[in-house]
């Protein structure tokens, strides 16, 4: 390479004061921008420009020139939009706390025992890495009211058959169960890492002071897990707001109609975006929905950082 001999010169003279440092700085800047050129082009082209375009597009008329606020007006007066917004918040409120609760219970249990730790961790994490599409279809088969295995299992316990995904009352919960089944292992893994990071002496000190297991957990473990909890809550809520793949595959098909059914009982913001944008081909309207989603994610991130940060200081 051509630059080899030159950079050697710069590196060697860099030890001297003043003037040569300027050239090193200049060279560094040049090298830095050569390295950054293509990646920056990517960031501008596929992230930043499209972000701006999405906001502009939400003001377009579908198929006509000029700007309008009509998309937002139509959206805020559409009952399906409010249904999607409510459902999305329901997904978050249902899935995130349960995922975290299961995750921490698993992490504490596995932390308490000596044998098979690695095995349990591996198995419980497995659902997280498997294809959400394939897994959703498996659950859809298990949920089927007439041929599904779940109703048989319920029958063993004397519970009457349920409609699950085909009932507007049960569908959202049924979808949530699949999401929890798939994601709880992630919470477990991160909690396990968080627990391992806590110095053992804190537990020992608490024990010597005569604290019960219950007290150790609430007074020592839980506060020290705060950063882990913040991370999991934020990633969980943001993930919950973006729920799409499971709903699309559990509820949509040419026989069952658009995903998000029955009667829009499972429709989420992203499913609504998809239906409006790519089934009804109203891309400007769909953009307006994604702008709301964007704002929602922003608010959640900022609020959570503020609220949960408070308890960091001891």
């Amino acid at each position, binding site marked *: 390479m051509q630059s080899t001999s030159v*950079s050697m010169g710069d590196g060697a003279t860099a030890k001297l004061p003043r003037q040569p440092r300027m050239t090193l700085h200049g060279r560094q800047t040049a090298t830095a921008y050569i390295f950054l050129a293509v990646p920056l082009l990517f960031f501008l082209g596929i992230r930043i420009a499209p972000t701006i375009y*999405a906001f502009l597009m939400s003001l377009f008329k579908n198929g006509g020139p000029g700007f309008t606020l009509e998309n937002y007006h139509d959206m805020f007066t559409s009952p399906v939009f409010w249904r999607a917004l409510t459902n999305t918040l329901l997904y978050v409120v249902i899935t995130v706390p349960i995922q975290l609760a299961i995750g921490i219970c698993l992490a504490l249990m596995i932390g308490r025992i000596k044998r098979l730790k690695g095995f*349990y961790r591996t198995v419980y994490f497995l659902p997280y890495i498997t294809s959400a599409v394939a897994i959703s279809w*498996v659950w859809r088969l298990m949920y089927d009211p007439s041929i599904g295995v779940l109703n048989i299992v319920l029958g063993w316990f004397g519970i009457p058959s349920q409609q699950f995904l085909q009932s507007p009352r049960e569908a959202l919960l049924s979808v949530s169960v699949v999401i929890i089944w798939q994601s709880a292992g992630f919470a477990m893994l991160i909690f396990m890492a968080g627990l391992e990071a806590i110095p053992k002496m804190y537990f020992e000190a608490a024990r010597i002071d005569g604290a019960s297991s219950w007290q150790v957990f609430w007074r020592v473990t839980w506060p020290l897990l705060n950063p882990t909890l913040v991370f999991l809550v934020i990633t969980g809520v943001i993930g919950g707001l973006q729920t799409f793949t499971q709903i*699309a595959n559990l509820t949509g098909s040419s026989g069952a109609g658009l995903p998000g059914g029955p009667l829009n009982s499972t429709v989420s913001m992203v499913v609504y975006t998809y239906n409006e944008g790519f089934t009804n081909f109203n891309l400007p309207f769909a953009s307006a929905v994604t702008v709301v989603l964007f704002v929602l994610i922003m608010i959640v991130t900022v609020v959570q950082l503020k609220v949960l940060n408070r308890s960091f200081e001891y």
Partner: protein
Amino acid sequence: MKRPADVGAILIHIVLWLGIVIVAAPFVWMVLSSFKSLPEFYSFDFLPKNWDTSAYSYIFQQTSYLRWYGNSFIVGVVVTVSELFFCSLVGYTLAKFNFRGRGAVFLLILSTLMVPTELLVIPWYVMSTDFHWTDTFWGIMFPGMIDGFGVFLMRQFMMGIPDDLIDAARIDGMSEFGIYVRVILPQVKSALSALGILTFLGNWNAYLWPVIVISTEAMRTLPVGIAMFSSSDNGGLQWNIIMAMSTLAVIPIVVVYFIFQRRIVEGIALTGIK
């Protein structure tokens, strides 16, 4: 030596095994169902009667399943290589170079993290139609070629590399790119493998963008292929075929996962904590 039995631990093992039943049941049910004939789905038996493999022969003879597998593999590998190369290069530049505008560049890249993919898919779709990228490999792959999270992650790890190492290489006359390849990259192997695993899995399982940009059967990735076949509903859901497709998609990943479980699990934990 006698040791008192740890009752608590035994109870925990029992609870954890019950949990494993819940985790494993869908996988077991998927495999069993793929070997049933369609009428058997209506006659509640747990095990298939004849271990019917016709669903599998149907997949290989009547659908483009192998093609979808190949597509997913190509997309996964190319995107992962690109992501690892660009993210580590940018991460290195941001961590170890002093240059005017570094703060601005870093902020610009971080700001992209706040934008959800869902906001971008519509502009990407418009872009792809204008440039005729729809239904091409490039169309499926371009959004993943680099991302802010990867850059941030690599930068975090690169910051820990001592400057002396880089200075010594400069004095030895290595080119700047040579330093990046031969000095820097070996220092962050664990971070690279973690990011690589995450990226590959993410692309292997990706659904939202591929289902939008792909329009012909031949270009489908595995998740899109399974979803489209399953929901096409030609004369009722063909559950045995759907389950066979799911089995073929899931089981190889499960096997690879169990072989490399330590590296995968610890890699993901590592990226989560940073």
